[in-house]
């Protein structure tokens, strides 16, 4: 759902971009966290393991940040 619902609690004139709203961003952050954890534990490529920490860290930062975004 990318259109702004006119009945939502958001003020009408909110300039908040629809794509940056909480739900989709939170889903993306969740995917990043999960991807990082899988990269840490996978047995296939050392390079994925190397970047696992950065991926999850990014996901955690994003998750914390977007929880403050409007619905």
């Amino acid at each position, binding site marked *: 759902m990318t259109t702004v619902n006119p009945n939502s609690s958001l003020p009408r004139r909110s300039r908040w971009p629809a794509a940056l709203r909480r739900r989709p961003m*939170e889903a993306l*952050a*969740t995917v990043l*966290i*999960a991807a*990082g*954890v899988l990269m*840490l*534990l*996978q*047995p296939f490529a*050392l390079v994925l*393991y*190397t*970047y*696992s*920490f950065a991926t*999850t*860290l990014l*996901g*955690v930062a994003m*998750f*914390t940040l977007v929880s403050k975004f409007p619905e």
Partner: protein
Amino acid sequence: MNQMPSFDSISTRAAAATPVRIAARVRGLSDTAIAWLFITPTMLLLLAINLFPLIWTIQLSFTNYRANRPNAPVRNVGLEHYQTILTDPDIWARMQATAHFVFWTILLQTVIGFALAYLIDRKFRGHGFWTTLILIPMMLSPAVVGNFWTFLYQPQIGLFNYLVSFVSGVEPASFQMLGDVSLSPWAIIIVDTWMWTPYVMLICLAGLRSIPDYIYEAAEVDRASNWRQFVSITLPMCLPFIMLAVLFRGIENFKMFDLVNLLTAGGPGSTTELASITLKRAAFEAWRTGYSSAFAVIMFVMIFGLANIYVKALNQVKAR
């Protein structure tokens, strides 16, 4: 029976009608003051014993500090420790040992736990009694019970080896669950599964019981087969509960220490050296405090991320 009458609707409405600022009319502390008075002690304790050490760990992770040489000069090494850990094939191998443990324990516990919950939900006579009995292992101290399992796993005298040989005919002294490189990863999986299957079972049971009867009745009217009911009603309705159990067991087993430390202490060699045991060896045996702090931060972040997802799953279940 089909629809739950909401008993609390009247009281909810009454509550909404009650003036919110009722406290302002009476003597005593204001609500805000009480709120802070009640929360502050807990927060102070957590700040002192959790947050402050966490910040200290992050700070130490950029240094070469060693706890056994408190007076040695401390040098700032930047991201060196993170770089070392995240490019070290040995540590990567430890992570794979952890992954092997986490994957198989979760798989076994979910399958057995869900099956048990499904069976208990048939509500046969005395199911409450047997459920309580099954729950006992998960309440016990993993360290103390794990220690006793080393006795059960003894090659000649252990009960586990005896029972396996009784069933399969293999000589009981011919295999060592804890001493053999190929068997020890499974030895720890068996004990963890024995201990924590009841946990998954209990949560799955709650999931099964949260499914209202009328859904099955409607399915029966539609002449859906038992298998079809299971796949399209039971499983999907239980899924949030199963996710909750899987996430929690995943977090717990990712940081597993007590059980495995007593069963194998990471051995033989380092076949069962899970992440927490590697960390303990680096921090409290090699005393590489800076290095192990970086390792700890990596584990913190992973678990913090998973905890975020876990709380999301908790809220999903709570909404049911």
